């Protein structure tokens, strides 16, 4: 798998493939938007405002998958120390945090007109916020640590953060069972037509996320090669200015 990712011939074919996939994803996104805004049935109580649901939920699901990728890649890195795994972990966390931010921002935008409040500390919102905080702290560690140690430290933090997630959900669940608060979004079953539109949007988001991750992966790989080349250059250069 790692060999496959590093193969030069594959990169050339990827370069040709990327614009095609980009156009396809754009079409899929437009189709999904059309489905969400026009085709999906209007919700009974909430009206058209409910349509933000088709952006809110898929972004959360995409984020969860990406953060899971981050966990897997971090564990893989700790075991094998392959730099590819480190780059995958970084990409998973970055893009995952972006999608999670979309989720956290669309949530209040939806909540305000429908329920009259921007935020409530119910189980879902609180646990999503804590998840976001954990992975933003991961990104801070990546930014602030010196480049030699970053992969190892970040991988260790990713493992700790991922292990924390069940505790987060469990503790907040019990807390809200003891002190119930109004739950935004409600539970209950979903109309199959709405589910259909939801899944289309999720597919579109996943394709988009894949393309973003791919280009971010390439970018990071190139950046590291450039940095390594610069480091090598300054090592080999005769030091004239130093007496």
């Amino acid at each position, binding site marked *: 798998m790692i060999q496959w990712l590093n193969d030069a011939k594959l990169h050339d074919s990827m370069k040709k493939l990327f614009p095609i996939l980009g156009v396809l994803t754009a079409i899929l996104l437009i189709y999904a938007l059309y489905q969400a805004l026009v085709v999906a049935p209007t919700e009974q109580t909430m009206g058209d405002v409910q349509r933000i649901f088709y952006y809110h939920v898929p972004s959360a699901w995409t984020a969860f998958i990406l953060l899971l990728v981050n966990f897997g890649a971090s564990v893989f890195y700790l075991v094998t120390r392959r730099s590819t795994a480190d780059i995958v972990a970084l990409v998973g966390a970055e893009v995952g945090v972006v999608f999670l931010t979309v989720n956290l921002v669309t949530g209040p935008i939806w909540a305000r007109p429908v329920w009259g409040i921007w935020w409530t500390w119910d189980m879902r919102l609180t646990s999503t916020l*804590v998840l976001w905080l*954990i992975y933003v*702290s991961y990104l*801070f560690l990546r930014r*602030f640590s010196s480049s030699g140690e970053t992969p190892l*430290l970040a991988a*260790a933090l990713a493992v*700790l953060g991922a292990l924390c997630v069940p*505790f987060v959900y469990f503790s907040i669940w*019990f807390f809200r069972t003891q002190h119930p608060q109004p739950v935004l979004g409600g539970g209950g079953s979903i109309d199959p037509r709405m589910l259909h539109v939801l899944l289309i949007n999720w597919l579109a988001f996943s394709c988009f996320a894949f393309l973003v991750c791919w280009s971010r992966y390439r970018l990071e790989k190139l950046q590291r090669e450039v940095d390594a080349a610069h480091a090598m250059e300054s090592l080999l250069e005769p030091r004239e200015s130093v007496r």
Partner: protein
Amino acid sequence: MSAPAAVTRVTLLKDLRLEWRSKDAINSMLFFSLLVVVVFSFSFDPSAEESRQIAGGLIWVAFLFAAVVALNQTWAREIRNQVLDAYRVSPAPSNSLFIAKTLGNFIFVTVLEALMTPLFIVFYRLRSIGPVWQLLLVVMVGTWALVVNGTFFAAMSLRTRSREIMLPLLLFPTSIPALLAMVQATTSILSGESAHFWIVLLVTYDLVFTTVCLLLFETVLNAE
């Protein structure tokens, strides 16, 4: 005594002895704790009944701040005279260093808490309806949760820019479930309710994170 345990004991005693002789950290921490309690008293001036509801949260936030300030200087001494590098090069097991540091921090933070608690009781006119031994258990288990993660993240933030701010940045998000459990357990016991679930959660959290930190500490210490 086995070699790792001996190393742990020696390192722990060294830290305690150094601190006892200089007393600079403990004095500044004591005063800081008093300041925190007083500032909180100005912010919240509750009746006796309300104070039981919010005291749990206030106390733990105060303990958290005190712990962060204590943890920030936990590794500083090791860096100053390249003690940490010497330790890495020596055949001493790094887990022993981690346990020794964590125990030292635990003792340190517990002393601070022991000094802050009477102040809280006095300033907030606190009286516990539930059994006090349960409160002590919650304090022990909760402090360990903060300290084990804090020592690990302090070791991590050694290699970062803005070392002092990195520790709380890393510690707070991961500690949120433990903090919730500590606060809820304290509030429940003070109000005479059952804190069983929260104590079990805290103990599980402690076990899981102590194990993981022990497993990963060698990696973090030797990260290059």
